[in-house]
């Protein structure tokens, strides 16, 4: 093992301090007894208590989760289809336009996406609410899903599919029994990405939501505009905790699967020898 120079150790330490200190401070101050976020007045879980009783926040959280589950599931189906079309579809009329529409939303400023969708919904007379947010979120997150899934499809050994077809599978069976299990990790991470993007989105949701449906980011944004509040710190802490647990679990599972696959390969090699 080579030793790291002091310069590299310093830059890593400072860099990660910069990335994590603000969030650590945010978490610490969520346990502050004082209403003033900047003065420490002893440990308390008071703000969590108030948060649980705040119905406006709970309603918004429920709407947000509903929207995220629906839009990410829909986006995963559509995005996987789009990825399949891009990688395996061959030539068809308007292929360039199609791939353009897949990549464009990734770089489109959210204000423009939000504005354009709102104008469409008003134009066709669709009332704004949960449905319109789901449609909007599905549209931009399916593009992320399709990028993730197509990067997996590109590296995928096509002869496996052909073998299944030769052995009498129908096209759909070959997809279901061979392709899908192999690209499943990418499909799952695509779903998670779509879910997170939906949970996180403020701008597009603000444009496409109506008075009947307010999501959590909209609620947080309007509270935060008035200044820092310990209740928002408590809410943020809960969200950070969920993400941290989720990401760490996911990486442990991936690691375990990788070790297992390695062990399998080794066992297979031994059996052959």
């Amino acid at each position, binding site marked *: 093992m080579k030793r790291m120079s002091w310069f590299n150790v310093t830059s890593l330490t400072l860099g990660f301090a910069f990335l994590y200190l603000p969030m650590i401070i945010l978490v610490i101050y969520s346990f502050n007894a004082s209403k003033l976020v900047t003065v420490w007045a002893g440990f308390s879980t008071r703000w969590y208590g108030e948060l649980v009783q705040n119905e406006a926040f709970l309603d918004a959280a429920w709407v947000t989760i509903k929207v995220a589950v629906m839009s990410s599931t829909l986006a995963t189906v559509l995005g996987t289809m789009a990825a399949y079309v891009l990688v395996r579809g061959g030539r068809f009329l308007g292929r360039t336009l199609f791939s353009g529409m897949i990549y464009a939303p990734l770089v489109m*400023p959210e204000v423009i996406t939000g504005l354009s969708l709102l104008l469409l919904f008003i134009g066709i007379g669709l009332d704004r609410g949960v449905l319109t947010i789901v449609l909007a979120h599905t549209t931009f997150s399916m593009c992320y899903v399709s990028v993730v899934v197509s990067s997996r499809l590109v590296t995928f050994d096509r002869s496996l599919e052909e073998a299944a077809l030769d052995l009498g599978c129908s096209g759909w069976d070959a997809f279901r029994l061979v392709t899908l299990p192999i690209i499943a990790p990418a499909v799952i991470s695509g779903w998670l990405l779509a879910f997170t993007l939906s949970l996180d989105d403020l701008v597009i949701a603000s444009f496409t939501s109506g008075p009947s449906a307010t999501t959590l980011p909209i609620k947080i944004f309007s509270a*935060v505009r008035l200044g820092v509040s310990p209740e928002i710190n408590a809410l*943020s802490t809960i969200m950070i905790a969920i993400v*941290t647990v989720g990401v760490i679990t996911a990486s442990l599972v991936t690691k375990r699967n990788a070790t297992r696959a390695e062990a399998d390969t080794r066992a297979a090699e031994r059996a052959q020898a």
Partner: protein
Amino acid sequence: MRRFALIAVPYVWLLALFLVPFIIVFKISLSDLALSIPPYTPTMRDGIGDMFAAFDFENFVFLTEDDLYWKAYLSSLRIALISTFMTLLVGYPIAYGMAKAPDEWRATLMMLVILPFWTSFLIRVYAWMGILSNEGLLNQFLLWLGLINEPLVILNTNLAVYIGIIYTYLPFMILPIYAALDRLDESLNEAAEDLGCSRMQAFWLVTIPLSKNGIIAGSFLVFIPALGEFVIPSLLGGSGTLMIGKILWEEFFNNRDWPVASAVAVVLLLILVIPIVLFQRNQQKQAEAEQ
């Protein structure tokens, strides 16, 4: 038949919810305010002829006449450029340190860079509000150190916007640079040093040019979203912070001037096309070079 459905479903979805809305924005940007408060006319139902007859470039002319918009576009460009450069300065040493770290740390370091990306953007911006305010922790800390006598005004200035952009987009800068540095062959630097370069010279003449692709990719990944940013300038910036995303929002939600908001969107898009095309070209060139 099945193939047709497979192509048609995502295709029609994107046409209806991505392309058509876009055309509507374009159309409304060419219509008049008086007609354009809902129901803005001319609508499709009134016939195509009427629709085109009422089109004009008034809103775009308005954008050039009112210097607020010019200033906002220029200041968005400036803020995005400066903060991209600062993100590069902060991100490069981190990526470099990661690439030089022992192998067994790398997966963990990588996860630590990606983790903030999964955390809510809004929360990450909000975290800085408590730190940068006049009574905030940064000022308390500096006062305690005795470095300053009076609290510095950072929140609600452009400086806070820079800090916010650097903080939230840092992973986008670190990851491509790390990917480029990771592939770098150590022996090239050793060769340069053997041939009489100092370490610093070897770094400038070998490492930096060979990580150029990572630097370019990272810079575009920060610059493009920073240009249309809304959340950061509206939470951390002040009334003097002009950014086009914020102007568009205010034009739409506060002034309810849809045609002007649409015209702002069209111009923003035109400005974005240049860096996006450059980025695409760069990515393609890189992909070809790898083959």
